[in-house]
């Protein structure tokens, strides 16, 4: 049957056959065969080796800053939902939780809003810790990058602490809980720092950055941006002297001018009013995508979910000359009980989103001046905002308290939908309005602080959650 003449030969042959097969496998070299690194990715140890890498990583921090989940939209929308500018009818789900000041640990919006700034902070920390290893990095680039990274880290911590903790000044020593302060790139679970500690770090980072950055920086953060942000932070702290000083410096020295129209900041065309922008360069690199999907009101038969309250609309249109009342709003289902007030500010397909602009600086300086008794400046600044909107000057010679009311109204009307309102109300609650209600709830009730997301607690089981309920 088999080749019985030479079984030995056959045995030999078969052994060769086996051996050759094994060699075939061996030749592919197991080690090499099993080495499949991910395509399009760079091993961490090789990623940050040149000055160019440093710039590219810094770019990614800006990319998170402007992302839809952060200042490109979500954090502004969610804080506005917690204020008093929005229409609560027909809200449901996660947004209703925010509107009702009743957030729990399972809220996808919160997960995103929490994790996104921290991703930016992590990248900033990686930059800050690893630049020494980059050989071709100039002293100038290192200093500039350090300043930009600290500026961005400060923004991240500041935006978060305002959402998750009681406002600055809620306790006299600000020992109430804020957020974990991340100033090192590390995976270690951290407890929540106090609000005082977070503000101290935010201010320290901004102070470090303010004099290092140039006055103009190719679209990236400038010294004016840092100072404007310092004005915002001090204003939030009801520290009016510092707020006045910084806003004053920016207004006087930055060379910024109000645009001729009230819509100027949102048309996507370059203007001289914006101090610091989240830059968009096309539909795929659009900082305004989330604002657009929340508010875009180009198709009234299919209105967006972001709707404004009737009370706001009546306030905004009380003065028929006010361009903002005319241009900022459009109505759907007009005249019916189901009438909806919609914003028109975010109707472009893509647009650059301002993070800091001159109108805010004028309003900060106006209110700070009023607080400090410098009524002339207060009056001039508020009139600048009013005049641009086609509204007449305020009655000359008003006292500080009356002026403050008018300035706060201008703040509301001028910066509607930009994410200021809720934080303004809480700041006022701390400063001079202890009985203030926001949508019917006390400004300092538990539910005003967004509940921490489950995802943080899953990796950080001992973190203290916010008490709930209003």
């Amino acid at each position, binding site marked *: 049957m*088999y080749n019985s003449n030479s079984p030995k030969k*056959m*045995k030999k042959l078969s052994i060769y056959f*086996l051996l050759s*097969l*094994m060699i075939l*496998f061996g030749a592919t070299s*197991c080690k090499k*065969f*099993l080495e*499949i690194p991910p*395509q*399009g*990715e*760079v*091993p*961490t140890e090789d*990623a940050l080796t040149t000055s160019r890498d440093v*710039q*590219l*990583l810094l*770019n*990614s921090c*800006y*990319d998170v800053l402007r992302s839809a989940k952060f200042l490109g939209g979500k954090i502004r929308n969610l804080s506005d939902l917690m204020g008093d500018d929005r229409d609560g*009818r*027909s809200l*449901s789900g*996660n947004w*209703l*939780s925010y509107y*009702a000041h*009743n*957030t729990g*640990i*399972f*809220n996808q919006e919160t997960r995103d809003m929490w994790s996104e700034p*921290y991703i930016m902070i*992590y*990248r900033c920390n*990686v930059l800050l810790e690893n630049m020494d290893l980059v050989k071709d990095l100039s002293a100038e680039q290192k200093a500039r990058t350090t300043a930009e990274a600290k500026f961005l880290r400060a923004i991240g911590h500041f935006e978060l602490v305002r959402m998750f903790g009681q406002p600055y000044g809620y306790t006299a020593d600000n020992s109430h809980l804020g957020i*974990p302060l991340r100033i090192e790139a590390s*995976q270690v*679970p951290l407890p929540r720092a106090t609000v005082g500690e977070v503000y101290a770090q935010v201010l320290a980072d901004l102070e470090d950055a303010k004099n290092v950055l140039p006055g103009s920086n*190719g*679209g990236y953060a400038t010294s004016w941006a840092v100072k404007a942000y310092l004005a915002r932070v001090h204003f939030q702290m009801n520290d009016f002297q510092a707020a006045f000083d910084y806003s004053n410096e920016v207004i006087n020295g930055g060379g910024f001018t109000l645009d001729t129209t009230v819509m100027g900041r949102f048309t996507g065309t370059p203007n001289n009013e914006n101090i610091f922008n989240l*830059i968009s360069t096309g539909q795929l*690199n659009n900082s305004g995508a989330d604002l657009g999907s929340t508010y875009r009101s180009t*198709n009234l038969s*299919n209105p*967006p979910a972001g709707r404004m309250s009737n009370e706001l609309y009546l306030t905004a249109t009380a003065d028929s000359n006010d361009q903002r009342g005319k241009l900022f709003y459009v109505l759907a*289902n007009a005249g*019916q*009980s*189901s009438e909806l007030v919609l914003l028109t500010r975010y109707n472009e397909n893509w647009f650059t989103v301002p993070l800091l602009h001159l109108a805010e600086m004028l309003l900060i300086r106006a209110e700070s001046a009023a607080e400090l008794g410098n009524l002339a400046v207060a009056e001039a600044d508020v009139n600048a905002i009013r005049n641009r909107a086609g509204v007449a000057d305020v009655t000359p010679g008003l006292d500080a308290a009356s002026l403050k009311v008018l300035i706060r109204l201008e703040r509301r009307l001028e910066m509607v939908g930009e994410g200021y309102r809720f934080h303004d109300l809480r700041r006022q609650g701390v400063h001079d309005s202890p009985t203030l209600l926001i949508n019917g709830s006390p400004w300092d009730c538990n539910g005003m602080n967004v509940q921490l*997301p489950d995802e943080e607690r899953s*990796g*950080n*089981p001992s*973190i203290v959650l916010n008490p709930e309920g209003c």
Partner: protein
Amino acid sequence: MQMRTFTLKITRILSLMLLVFAAGAGSLAAQNATISGIVFDENDAPMVGATVVLEGTTLGGFTDEAGKYSISGVKPGQYTVSVSFVSYDKFQQVVAVTAGEKAMVDVKMKLKVLDDVIIVGYGTERKRDMTGSVSKITSRELNDVPGASFDATLQGKAAGVQVIQGSGIAGAGAKITVRGSGSVSAGGDPLYVIDGIPITQDPFLSGDRGGQNNNPLSSINPADIESIEILKDAAAAAIYGSRGANGVILVTTKRGKTGKPVFNLSARTGISRPAKLLKFVNTDQWLQMYQEAWENDGNVGQPSILPGGYTVDSARANGTTDWQDLTTGTGVKQEYNLSMSQGTEKLKTYADVSMMNNQSYLIGNSYRRYTGRVNLDWNILKNLKLGVSASGAYGRNNKIGQAWDGSLGMAQSNALPYFNEQTSNSAFGGGNPINRRTQIDWRTIEKRTINTMNLQYNPFKNLTLNANGSLDFMDLGDFYLEDSLWTNNKIIGKDWYNKILNWNSNATAKYDFNMLPKNHKLSAMGGVEAQKMVRKSGYMEVSDVNKQLYLDWQGTEDSDTIETSYPLDSWSFVSTFGRINYQLNDKYIIKASLRVDGSSKFGKNNRYGYFPAVGAAWVMSEEGFWKNHLTKAVNFFKLKASFGVTGNADIPSFLRFGTFSGSNNNIQYNNDSIIFPIRLENPNLKWETTQTMDAGFEFGLLKDRITGEFAVYNKESRNVLLRTSSPTSSGFKEYWQNIGHIRNRGIELGITTFNINTAAFKWKTTLNIARNRNLVVDVGTTPPDALQGSGDTRVVAGYPVGVNYLVRFSHVDPATGKPVYLDKNGNETFEWRTENRVVVGNVQPAAQGGLRNTFEWKGFDLSVLWTFTLGGKIYDDAAKRQYGVVSNWTMPNGLIDHWTTPGQVGAQYPRLTLDPATYGLDNEWNNNSTLWLYDASYARLKNVNLGYNFKITQEKKWWIQKLRVYASGTNLWTITKYPGSDPEIVRDQNGPQGRNISPNVTYLTPPQERTFSLGVDVQF
């Protein structure tokens, strides 16, 4: 030499004489012969009811009480007497009769030994020699139940193999769990091996797009399958080493058989209806409930705006749209299969073509498939064989969004009764499943070819060398064509594509040591194997596209094309393995195997894994004492036990690498590129390892009238891969770690009885039942919320994998109508609080199995399959919205038993409200309580198949050799306490973790289909 020639001559002369004589006799007188005799069993007892036929004639009969038979009217000639009886070898004897002769043929039947050949990894074994646990399912059992995909048809047919058919969507897959789940974050599906190649089996290639997962097994034609072997324990599966921990499913396709060409044509057509649908409210009822909720919340008058932007008046004016009626109908199914088998000693061929069009009851949903296959076996030389299997499939799945994304799911959720077909569908908060269906044309097109080549060489006796090369290529395209009505802009074409190449080659050598004394049998097998998977995927979007989307990708001139290719996914394995089988006296059997796997997924520290197994069996019925005393009652008895280690490496490919994105990631800021950290390095990642101990016995009673198998097992899965959470404030969400320990303990029983076994009537029963106790022993410090599944399932130490982690609902407060919950300590509270969630149930059944009865009577055959599940819970994740806070969802008609007046005691549901805070909730979506948790037990009449086999006589020289017609029905009757639409359910999952820990969760999942079909099988 001379002697031989002489004998030959004599024989020839004699037969010539016989022929002449016979012919003469036939012409002279038509005097017929009689053949009779007695049929005895092994112990010389007469056998009653044995079938006796003369092959090639219509003559035949059955043995009587005394075991006697008699066939008269036999024309002179030469015949083959053939006697058959269940469990006995067929007896055949040639006999020549002359006219008027009374021939006597007595027969002694021999009991069939348990020698079913079982396919095991890299070889075959006789069933009686096995030491491991393997279930075999034959093609006949498989094709009883009509279905597009073979995975679902395994249900109820193998002990310890839990099969949940996910939904009623055309071509939908099943979730198969072999002996309990031992994985959490890594894939928990068994390994699928077709003709030797571990195929592409990832159900998440398209994520959970459209509320459903893609089923990669549906492109395999069930009619091509000869058998399916399920390797359940380590002794059987350890030869697949690092991928065997969750069981291995070996699929073997049909091969050509020696003989003239035989063609089989089968055709089947049928209809599909939903197994059960709930009723929903009409517009007036909905408005009435909304008004009640509105007033309960302290409002007066009418609500100013209703969901969808309607007013009460405009809603009422619209009347009622029955969205369920508009999304469901009667689906028509058609299936045609033509196969050919032929063979010579040199070359055997099996070929098959099939066509199937499978509409589900969901309007717009159908799955069409064309397949072709050629399997060749060529004996090139006496000791060199080439085997080729080549198959191709083209599948087109006309999909529509399901569950949360459209169709019936939308009809049961946010498509309100006062909406109509003009209602726009999107941010306005309204659902219109008709728009969704007609304005997005969604097709999944899969082209797939699975090919295997095998070269077998026997250089000398006892040594067999095998070399195999296999290739599985899958081209899966998910195409959306979005109408301008949908996009409010230009027509947009979208294509998510996946091209996956999976190749495998191995070589084995097997040697039988025949130099040993006869009562020893020893063989050894060794081999090497390499496998690599490469997956290219991406996304393409063309706006302003021609409607020719599926034909070509040409946009119009001013169209805008976006193409993003995702990073290449790839992994590889290199393995060596070996196995030794030893038998003494055919009754003491020892087997040992070892596999060493190296994988690209693991880093230097843990690159190679070692997976040994050892098993032993003792065929006690071969022992002398047994033969002397017990054989009459227990003719076969085998004890077996085994221990082994298997692994699981089904995790994403690149977890071990700490990387940054390169700058070519298509993301820009300020017109400049960006780089960013992606992952932290994870050099210590390694395989999950499962140590399995298995013991059991196999038996045959009363000459195999009753056969069965019993097994107990203990599976300890350690180093279980957990996707643990990082604090998200660290900049990362997750980090994979080997920290879990899961135990599965169980018993399983499979039993087959021939209850009635007469010639006229046969009744056979097959029952399998398995109980598995699953326990998470340890998950380190991972808190429950870090290991989430859908529908609030969690992984908690001390409980089974996949527990329902909910706030306990106590009752409706008679005074206020608010729901009363229990806090952690059992005290009543109105507040739903996350810290009050406790383990209240689990998704794993206590026991499950199947019961199949088959009957044969006069050409009729009937098979009746029941499947059942005992224990476990179902969580209806949609009920919390349908019955919960009134908002923008429709409500079931049954929501009548709710609290309406103060003092009302015992209402089933709380007061109606529009405000989640009334129920103590932050959010209506978090209304997760035991109010929606149900007992998952059910028994289901899965399939009834009634056939008739026409008697085909060869004398008529019909071209037809066999003809069977049948009628079949599936999911005919379900006994359950579950009030929802279907207790057998798996919601769409967006990853392996959800699939592992939330099998019994539904979220608007379309219920199973009830089908009725008619079919015909013809052989010619």
